[in-house]
């Protein structure tokens, strides 16, 4: 280090002696002269088709001792069945995590990470990939794993379950980031919510996916003739070709050619769509409509248009929205064309809530301007120079070249498309830009998506003169344990229900015993999934027949008491007493309907219907709209489970299930000492009843006393 410094100083000293730098004026950047750029050598990609149909693309790169490969497979989530959106994604995940015929995914994890290698799989919108990466010395071993993952994946059930859990969790989080919401909703609205390009995964669609679906999806699309395999790295082409040919010789499965991807069937969706999110200080805006494809004749002109409009520091939107107005940090416009289907013309920005409407106005103005007057010649020249002078960066790594060849072949583009594009850009005139803008940008069909807090938007969005619609971001409720099928109420079902209920009454101690119960006091310990581990709540529930109810819960920070007579009620917390709000009152009414002792006597109540649609089950409902299905234990005749619909904290109705266990005698009646409450297939709460006091003479006056 020191030596280098001394030499540097010496050199500096020498230079100074020869040419004092102070005397040399700094040229203007405009006056700099540049030598010709060295021509870049674009290597030829060696292509072969193996006997089984796999198309190989090979390129040598000896700079580093690495080998990387990627198989491109014609498939995509565009091929999801509409009722199973997420199938392709899941298949892409499980191909790797589910292991191979001989090894579990966990075993592959250890094997690969031990040698710092990776094999990964995934399925995107319009392609599937299986890739590998390793140090040169491990090539054979990793090719083996890669081959097995691609040709004989295990697709094991436990990893399908894990993938479902992960995907469900990601659904639950999809409304946390406003930028993601804006992008997603814009795509969805412009392409059409019910089309393959606009629909999204939901809990319900995931629930319908089972292993046979995954296997079928894999088998349909993963076959040799449908695979393009690109490999780059420190090897010789002849050697690698031979290796791959040998390795994949055993993969001979055939399938019919894959159908074309579904076409885009989008209809214009003009207007403003607002998704309310109150925990943000900005409005996240996306504006635009359907765009075009890369091979459109006007694509070069449209790309220049979008670049001038919003393609970076130099652009009109950047200058105005960010630099002049200070409205935003990020603002952009893009004509994002796709290879084989229309992309999106999209302007976007995020700005403090108060400037939301003003920013949309600027978007509209700039769109109008670029459609009605020619861009300045400096603007167009500048844009062309950007493309021309940075063109070399399309080829600066061998991987880019390889990936490009693969992509062009995959989508049926000519191999020299990038050069056609370059020539196209060169030829664009100011008239072309304006004409293309007029023909392809249509202000009348603009879709505007705004995510944020509309109350803080300053000037209301409605002042923009476009219809304003609310987007409901609510995530449709997860599909839960089978909902009770609608009860059959024909005479035969009622007869069966009555008989079964009589049997239950007998098993529980007799109908008369049950009818003699006038009050019940339950003391129980409660633990809930949402509570801190180790935290327990004690509760005392008192029921005075027929419809008086009091619940006292002892929590670490204090006591909560709820009382109701079925018509109204109150709630007391350490903060004070207040009337029972309607949702809680409704819940109490549902509780009262299901009180064990009276529920089992439902055949004696005029306003209740008792029937049995399926063997071993009893459906009970009343005029007020309450209903419950009891599943009866065939051996004991006692209720094993209760299934009913209930309002969730999220405000959505959901299916709940209570499982009864450890029946014991109390006052001549068999009662469950353990009740597990499940929601959506997962344990929600556990109650252990430590004491049942029956007929202790409690009166309504006693339980309605406020603390």
């Amino acid at each position, binding site marked *: *280090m020191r030596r*280098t410094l001394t030499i*540097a*100083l010496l050199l500096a000293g020498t230079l100074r002696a020869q040419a004092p*730098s102070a005397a040399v004026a*700094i040229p203007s*950047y405009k006056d*700099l002269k*540049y030598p*010709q750029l*060295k021509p*870049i050598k674009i290597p030829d990609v060696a292509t072969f088709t193996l006997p089984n149909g796999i198309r190989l693309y090979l390129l040598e790169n000896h*700079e*580093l*001792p690495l080998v990387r490969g990627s198989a491109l497979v014609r498939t995509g989530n565009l091929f999801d069945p509409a009722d199973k959106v997420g199938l392709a994604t899941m298949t892409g995940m499980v191909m790797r995590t589910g292991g191979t015929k001989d090894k579990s995914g*966990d075993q592959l*994890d250890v094997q690969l*990470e*031990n040698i*710092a*290698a990776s094999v990964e799989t995934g399925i995107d919108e319009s392609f599937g990939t299986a890739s590998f990466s390793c140090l040169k010395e491990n090539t054979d071993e990793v090719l083996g794993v890669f081959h097995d993952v691609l040709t004989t994946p295990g697709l094991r059930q436990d990893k399908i379950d894990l993938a479902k*859990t*992960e995907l*469900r*969790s990601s659904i*639950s989080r999809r409304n*946390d980031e406003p*930028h993601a919401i804006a992008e997603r909703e814009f795509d969805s609205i412009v392409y059409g919510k019910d089309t393959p390009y606009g629909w999204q995964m939901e809990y319900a669609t995931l629930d319908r996916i089972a292993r046979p679906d995954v296997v079928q999806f894999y088998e349909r699309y993963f076959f040799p003739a449908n695979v393009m395999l690109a490999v780059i790295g420190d090897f010789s082409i002849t050697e690698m070709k031979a290796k791959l040919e040998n390795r994949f010789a055993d993969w001979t499965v055939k399938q019919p050619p894959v159908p074309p991807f579904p076409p885009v069937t989008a209809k214009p969706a003009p207007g403003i769509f607002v998704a309310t999110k*109150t*925990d*943000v200080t*900005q409005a996240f805006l996306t504006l635009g409509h359907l765009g075009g494809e890369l091979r459109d004749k006007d694509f070069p002109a449209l790309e220049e248009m979008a670049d001038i409009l919003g393609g970076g*520091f*130099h652009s009109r939107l950047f200058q105005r929205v*960010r630099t*002049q107005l200070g*409205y935003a*940090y990020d603002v952009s416009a893009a004509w994002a064309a796709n290879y084989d289907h229309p992309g999106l013309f999209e302007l976007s920005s995020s700005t403090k809530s108060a400037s939301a409407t003003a920013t949309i106005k600027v978007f509209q103005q700039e769109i109008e301007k670029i459609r009605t007057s020619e861009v300045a010649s400096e603007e167009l020249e500048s844009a062309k*120079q*950007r493309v021309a*002078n*940075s063109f*070399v*960066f399309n080829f*600066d*790594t061998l991987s880019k070249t390889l990936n490009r060849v693969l992509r062009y072949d995959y989508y049926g583009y000519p191999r020299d498309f990038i050069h056609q594009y370059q020539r196209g850009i060169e030829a664009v005139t100011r008239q072309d830009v304006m004409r293309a803008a007029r023909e392809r940008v249509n202000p009348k069909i603009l879709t505007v998506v705004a995510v944020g807090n509309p109350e803080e938007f300053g000037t209301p969005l409605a002042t923009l003169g476009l219809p304003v619609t609310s987007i409901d971001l609510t995530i449709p409720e997860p599909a839960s344990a089978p909902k009770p099928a609608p009860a059959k109420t024909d005479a035969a079902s009622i007869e069966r229900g009555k008989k079964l209920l009589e049997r239950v009454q007998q098993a529980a101690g007799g109908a008369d015993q049950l009818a003699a119960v006038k009050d019940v006091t339950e003391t129980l310990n*409660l633990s809930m999934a*949402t*509570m*801190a*581990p180790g935290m327990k709540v004690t509760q005392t529930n008192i029921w005075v027949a027929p419809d008086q109810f009091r619940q006292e819960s002892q*929590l670490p*920070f204090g006591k*909560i008491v*709820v009382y109701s007579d079925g018509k109204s009620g109150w709630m007391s917390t350490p903060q004070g007493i207040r009337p029972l*709000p309607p*949702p809680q009152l409704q*819940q109490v009414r549902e509780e009262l309907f299901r009180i064990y002792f009276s529920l089992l006597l439902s055949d004696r109540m005029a306003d209740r219907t008792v029937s049995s649609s399926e063997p071993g089950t009893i459906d009970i409902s009343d005029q007020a709209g309450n209903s419950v299905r009891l599943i009866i234990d065939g051996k004991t005749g006692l209720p094993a489970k209760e299934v009913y619909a209930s309002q969730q*904290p999220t405000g959505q109705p959901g299916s709940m299930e209570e499982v009864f266990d450890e029946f014991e005698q109390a006052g001549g009646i068999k009662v469950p000492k353990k009740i597990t409450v499940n929601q*959506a297939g997962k344990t929600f709460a556990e109650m252990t009843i430590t004491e049942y006091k029956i007929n202790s003479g409690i009166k309504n006056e006693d339980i309605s006393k406020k603390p």
Partner: protein
Amino acid sequence: MSRPAKLHLLFLLASCLAAAQDLKEFEKRVTEFTLANGLHFIVLERHQAPVVSFHTYVNAGSVDDPEGKTGLAHMFEHMAFKGTETIGTKNWPEEKKALAAIEEVYDRLEQEQRKGPRADPAKIAAIEEELKAAIEKANSYVIPNQFPTIIEENGGVGMNAGTSLDSTEYFYNLPANRVELWFLLESQRFLHPVFREFYKERDVVMEERRMRLESDPQQKLIQCLLSSAFEAHPYRRLSVGWASDIQSLRVRDAEQFYKTYYVPANITIGIVGDVDPKQARALADKYFTRLPARPLPPIIHTVEPPQEGPRLAQIQSASQPFEVIGYKRPDQYDKDDPVFDVVSSLLAGGRTGIIYKDMVRDKQISLAAGASASFPAAKYPNLFLFYVFPSLGHTVQDNEQALSQLLEQFKNEKVDAESLARVKTKTRASLIHRLDSNSGLAELLTSFYVNYGDWRKVFTSLDDVDKVTADDVQRVARKYFVSNTRTTAFDFQPQPVGEKHAQTPAQTGEKQ
């Protein structure tokens, strides 16, 4: 000798040779020199394609923001794109006068504001109007965004800059025939920066803050964690600064920051690609020697006092739950620094990380869970960070409990040889993967030089990792993963009150 151990030794031998090979091979292609003013250059030749990447690494970041002026380092970074006396202006002499006029009016405004309750609102309104007019007048001389536009027009790609706590970095790539442009522009931007459009840029930075922090539940939680973990040290805040500080920044603040920190001896430049080192040297002399040498800036002397008990912070949020946990740890110069990296990989690396296997794969209580060995930065004592995203139906509490158990186990059971070997192999391979990017290399070389005094540490740090033993891992885990120096932060959703079974904001997770 059992098979795994044998493989371990063989591989180490092979990879040691490989590393030596790489370093020697690299050294042949690296030219380093320091100008008289202290500016240091590292030039690496890589002639695969006629392109060059440039990386300017300034050894100053948000930790250097003065109290009450947080966000200043980041603000200056924005200013560095505004041009010079010759770039970005239609008429510099007039613009210079107009910019001085803005400051004069703003000074008068502040004088009136400082009167507090005795300030005259009418006077303030009038001066604010004057200020607006003065700003508009100065803006009329501006050619907006000319500096970055010149770069883009000349084929520049990947242009950006970033301010972190420990550093500020500027980078872009150019076609190889235009290297002289970089020398001209980069030297001018740090020799004659002009703070034009400063007050408008404050608004832009505010929007950036709103976007990156205020509207992002995870970033908000991380800010909360940092403020709780660090009482005194500037690592307590994220780089963008406090909103009220940003909105009070003045041009003279940025000028002072620039004079103090943007001194040649505090800057290192990496140039990687199809470059001729002799030509680079000549151009450095032509353009960069005119930057005057100035004394090195002060080093942060505030030391975070010892943490003597666990800390907890919570944020009520409509978002899905998320939790971060930080354990205090020493800076990157500590002899155990490589051990922390190994620990991080053992616990959270890939699909074999202990946390991944237990919480994501087996128990499925987490959607994602991981760790970061140095957070938020590494030059000063910092945090070993864990983060968990509970999966649907699970809570931060059950995630935290599982993590706690894993850490206890990790402290009690020494790591096996296979896992340790795996981490070392991955570390070595990951470096090899980073060697094929000009811009990545430029960043690596300058960063290691600034932080450790020698770019060769990019390679020799692998040897430090190789020396880590199972005993080291256990010792470090036992010493640092202790509750007294732990800070936890999580967000919780508001619970509707009056639910049948739990009338409690269930996620308070109160610790008994």
